[in-house]
């Protein structure tokens, strides 16, 4: 905003305030890291975020405990989750890119309605869809299958992705496309050779959101996957801290390992976050 420097006292106060706030924001994260390193299954017996004793036992247990059929529990479910999330990202982004391009660049009857519908479906409570989806997936033979979960997650992610991408496409200049059209490029060629490369930041953000949708979801995963070996990571991790038996050490180790890849992706893409999210909103 303004380039003018405020008074020194005010500047110090703001800096101190931000440090305190950042510490408060990081506190829960540090508690989990502490718990993952500290021995014992209890959550926290002190407020200090510094571990009193360091051990790798939770991580060892996480990576070595085996399920009923002898598979390495964590790695097995991590593989499920990686597969589901990557496929969701690919399917979700592919479907939203094309749809967003159509909504951004073409004028056709029903366009406004279509845009509105993509907003309205955000309002469908997941619990309303849970049961019918169960029936539909059952009929399609997709219950207990990764394909079923991928389809459901992609369609959950599409509305938000379409809106974000449409906004991004709107902000791209049209001159290049017009030039290409005059040179005789087909719409598909323009989309692939001009729009997609230009929209990379927006697509990156959408991909991240699709990935996070799938990586973080647990209600549908626990409903549609009745076979325990097909569980995704969230279901596994949630099951370590139920009402009846809570192993917070194991949970914390699992939480750290699960969050790290998402956080890495998040920070790699975070410089695009601001532009990708707001391009559409600002331009209206």
């Amino acid at each position: 905003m303004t380039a003018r420097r405020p008074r020194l006292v005010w500047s110090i106060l703001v800096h101190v305030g931000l440090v305190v706030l950042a510490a408060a924001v990081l506190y829960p994260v540090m508690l989990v890291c502490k718990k993952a390193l500290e021995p014992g299954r209890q959550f926290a017996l002190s407020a200090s975020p510094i571990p009193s004793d360091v051990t790798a036992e939770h991580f060892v247990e996480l990576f070595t405990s085996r399920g009923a059929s002898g598979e390495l529990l964590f790695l097995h479910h991590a593989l499920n989750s990686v597969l589901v999330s990557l496929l969701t990202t690919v399917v979700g982004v592919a479907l939203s890119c094309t749809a967003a391009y159509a909504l951004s660049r073409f004028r056709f009857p029903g366009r406004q309605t279509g845009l509105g519908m993509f907003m309205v479906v955000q309002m469908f409570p997941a619990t309303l869809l849970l049961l019918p989806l169960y029936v539909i997936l059952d009929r399609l033979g997709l219950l207990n299958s990764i394909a079923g979960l991928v389809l459901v997650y992609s369609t959950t992610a599409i509305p938000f992705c379409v809106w974000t991408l449409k906004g991004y496409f709107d902000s791209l200049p049209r001159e290049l496309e017009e030039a290409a059209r005059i040179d005789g490029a087909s719409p598909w060629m323009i989309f692939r050779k001009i729009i997609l490369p230009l929209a990379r930041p927006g697509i990156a953000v959408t991909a991240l959101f699709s990935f996070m949708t799938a990586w973080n979801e647990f209600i549908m995963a626990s409903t549609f996957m009745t076979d325990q070996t097909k569980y995704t990571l969230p279901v596994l991790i949630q099951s370590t801290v139920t009402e009846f038996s809570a192993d917070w050490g194991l949970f914390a180790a699992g939480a750290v390992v699960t969050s790290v890849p998402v956080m890495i992706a998040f920070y790699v893409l975070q410089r695009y976050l601001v532009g990708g999210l707001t391009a559409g909103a600002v331009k209206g």
Partner: protein
Amino acid sequence: MTTVGRQLRDFAVGAVLAVLIATIAFVAVRNQELAARQTELATRAATGIAEGRPLPDVHAVLVGAPKPSPTRPYLRQRRVLEGDAWRPLVAGGGPDDKLIYDAANRYDQLAARGERRATSRVVSASAARDPRRAQAAPPEPDAWSPPWPAAIAPGFAELLPDGSGRAVAVAPVTSAPTYQLAIAVTPPARPAPYPLLVMIGLLGLGAALAAAGALIAPRGLAARAAFALGIAVLAIPCVLWQAWTGATAILVVAAGLALAQHARLTDRITAGLRRHRTALGFLAPAAVSMLVLVAAPFLIGLVIGFYDHHHGQWSFVGLSNFGEILSGGGRALDDPLNFWFILGVTVLWTAANVFFHVAIGVALALVLSQSWLRGRGVFRMLLIVPWAVPNYITALIWKGMFTGEYGAINSLLHAAGLDGVSWFSSWATAFAANVATNTWLGFPFMMVVALGALESIPKELYEAASVDGASAWQRFRHITLPHLRPALGPAIALGSIWTFNMFNVIFLVSGGKPGGATNTLVVDAYRWAFERGERYGMAAAYGTIIFLILLLWTVFGTRIVRRKEAP
């Protein structure tokens, strides 16, 4: 395109619809036939074995009483009489053992419910026992008597839902000295094959009729009549199967399309499709998948709201689910199960969260956008950490922090010289715990959106304002705020919808404690479906109401935002 070509194009559209309707009608009719035939066969076999006259080709057995397993009391052990000896009924022990076991358990559930309802029938059923039958089958040794009299429920027969076309029937053996069930499983049966040749023939006939009409009178009434007739021909099989609804539907389609054709609607639609085929092609994949996996379940969900699901039985109840919900189910207004109470909690939850998200997010964005701030990048990185952490993990962490006398939050309070709080035993503190968790989780989104909007404000505006002598507050009021609004409006609309529908935080942090008082509408809907006896109808009705509330909110909410933008 020639007249005949156009006529055939319209006919193709109508024929696709008509064949679809005819096929649905056909499947329904033949499934009904199959079900009737197979259940009748199963019933005869079951009553037959009960009377000592087994039918050939149908697998029918007598099953003994359920006995609680000594090691796991919730498991029931049963025995089955096959040939002349009783053997344990276990999955894999014999053909259909699992089916038979499940059918027997269903009968027991029905009987247990019937016990309360029809005590008079118990008497008549036990009076009807026939002592002559006792010798025909060897009695089950040391039979366990279930806590309800045998033969209390009338027995049932149904088609197995596995698509194999088999049926199972259960009949109580009223003449046996102890509890015994006769259970029969029919061999699989194939439903009648689809009359493919008939349908192809009719399609050809219809097409010929439509084309002939177009040749005789290219634009006249005859063409329309022949067109309608061509489609109507496809209703013939429905009439033969006595599927009157199907036949009527096809006739309506025929008449409707003929009218549309007359009004040149079909020509215009085709032209529109052709003109916009690129756009529609790009849109199609997403649209189709949304239709199948979002719109279809949504419609099914709406319909389910008019049904009641109770112990595996569906029944149409009209608006009574909605009535029960909206009237609060006869509960007091401060009862945590009363809809209006939950709605109040949900609105409060949404308002509190959105307020904190926006207030904290915008305040931080304003500070972080100051160019004199040191370490802006670092602060921004640190402050969006909560967004990157999976939200179910966040919820569980905060639950852990709030739980227990020595949880992290209480330890902090102790360190500050305050007393610990039992967070989940009173409404206010449990609600505060939920809101704190969700605020932590959600403010980075608003911060990032606001940062984006602030970055798009041209610096010249502030410089010009400063030159003109505008105060800091005036600059904020007249430059910053108007630029923030278009970005924040949609973000707030979206954020309020997400918060309203937020499930993980409430379900995992407070879990509705104390006594369900912190449940929001979505959590309560989930509990109706999965924790209160599978009342799917109630859950779906809740879902419908939630959707309507959000729809109203968006329609009026965006209107308010727009009105503010106008001047």
